[in-house]
């Protein structure tokens, strides 16, 4: 029943990932992230004074602009903007600099499937590059469900269209360092198991969803280590340049 994937990857095997930071000089923070064919460029313009009209001045306000590869901003882009904005509100510490607006511009360079996770990683890396205080990093994965009920991780564009349904999940990165010990296991479950964002497309049964959840969570820990290693190695040579 093992579904053979076109590019020969195993069910749980992710596409090669590459993150590079500080790619734009004018932005306060910028990052370029690519998952296999999908490449996204994110730029952060540091906390600017004043919040938009209906925003809460006591908290920092995050504004996301999603630039598609071609064409103008339609409804799908607006939805991605809202999801990315709410996700980043989860991971940023909003009370640090109140009454400011941090604007994040996401430019899709090439879309070859599971676009949102790649955008989330790019945005997080750009925020780290800009030195915005974060509670933890968000690690995102998307998995799709074949008609036979088998779950494939990190689908590309063709697989996404062919499959019955697909789920995009975002989890907090392993968080041992920042939060005090007690709160790490909120309600008997380690915080890392909490879900920041979940977006599903297509009809599936409830336990299919929970299987996707478990599979996604299992793939998170190795993914977050790769992410952290890439970010730390990058900041190391930054210091060397700056130092």
């Amino acid at each position, binding site marked *: 029943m093992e579904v053979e994937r076109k590019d020969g990857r195993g069910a749980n095997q992710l596409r090669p990932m590459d993150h590079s930071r500080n790619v734009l000089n004018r932005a306060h923070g910028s990052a370029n992230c690519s998952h296999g064919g999908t490449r996204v460029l994110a730029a952060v313009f540091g906390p600017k004074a004043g919040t938009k009209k209906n925003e809460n001045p006591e908290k920092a306000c995050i504004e996301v602009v999603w630039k598609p590869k071609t*064409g103008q901003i*339609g409804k799908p882009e607006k939805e991605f903007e809202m999801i990315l904005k709410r996700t980043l509100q989860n991971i940023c510490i909003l009370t640090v600099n109140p009454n400011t607006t941090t604007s994040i511009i996401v430019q899709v360079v090439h879309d070859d499937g599971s676009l949102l996770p790649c955008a989330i990683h790019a945005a997080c890396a750009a925020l780290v590059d800009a030195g915005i205080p974060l509670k933890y990093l968000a690690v995102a994965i998307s998995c799709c469900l074949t008609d036979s009920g088998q779950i494939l991780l990190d689908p590309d564009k063709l697989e996404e*269209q062919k499959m019955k349904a697909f789920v995009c999940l975002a989890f907090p990165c392993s968080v041992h360092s920042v939060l005090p010990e007690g709160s790490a296991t909120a309600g008997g479950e380690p915080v890392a198991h909490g879900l920041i964002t979940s977006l599903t*497309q*297509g009809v599936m049964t409830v336990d299919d969803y929970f299987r996707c959840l478990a599979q996604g969570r299992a793939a998170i820990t190795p993914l977050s280590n790769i992410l952290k290693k890439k970010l730390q190695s990058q900041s190391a040579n930054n210091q060397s340049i700056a130092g």
Partner: protein
Amino acid sequence: MAGKSSSTPATYAPSVSGQKKRRPLIQADSDWVRPDGRSFHQCRPAFLRTGAVNSASGSAYAEFGNTKVIVSVFGPRESKKAMMYSDTGRLNCNVTYTTFATPLRGQPPETKDLSSMLHKALEGAIILKSFPKTTVDVFALVLESGGSDLPVITTCASLALADAGIMLYDMVASVSVSCLGKNLLIDPVSEEESYQDGSLVITCMPSRNEVTQMTVTGEWSTPKIHEAMQLCLDACSKLGKIMRSCLKDAASVPQD
């Protein structure tokens, strides 16, 4: 996934085959019956209710036959930054139609015109000095356009203003008359409006007996205008009574 085609293909509404809305031949004062069976000087049944929108400071819903309108008023609030200081309050009106309001699925062109007409109709009745530096926003949405839309919008807007507690000199009632050959038809439906020779729309304050807005199109002789005005004014006073009773029983039953 059934991706929705981004640009919807060009579509057209299937129109009724063969039958064209011709203007019915009317001899002078024959007993020609109007499409919905009303007599010439009879208005459509009016259904008025306040408090339709909970998140607005004042709102009202009006239904005259097939014309259904919702107006919500957002109480005196700070006006846009671009506005200079003014020691009298400002009124901001905006009228929009739903896409399914008119039988043919398109936005009727004169919504900008309706907003400025609504603004002129209401500014005479509101005590603008009672809220300096601020703006009162009156937004109207026409759910279904069944004819003589502006009078129904104006009447519903004045009810919403009263519901919002804005100081008014008097309620504002509005009625329209269209002239077809010799006859005067009050409160015309959209079919009658499409082949009317002329129309007269009056907005007045019933108990102060003052006209705040009046527009006439088509060719009228002075006695005809006089007769039409008289007809509208007592229709407005009847409408004013209905509006007052609607406000009274909205206030008497406590808001649940």
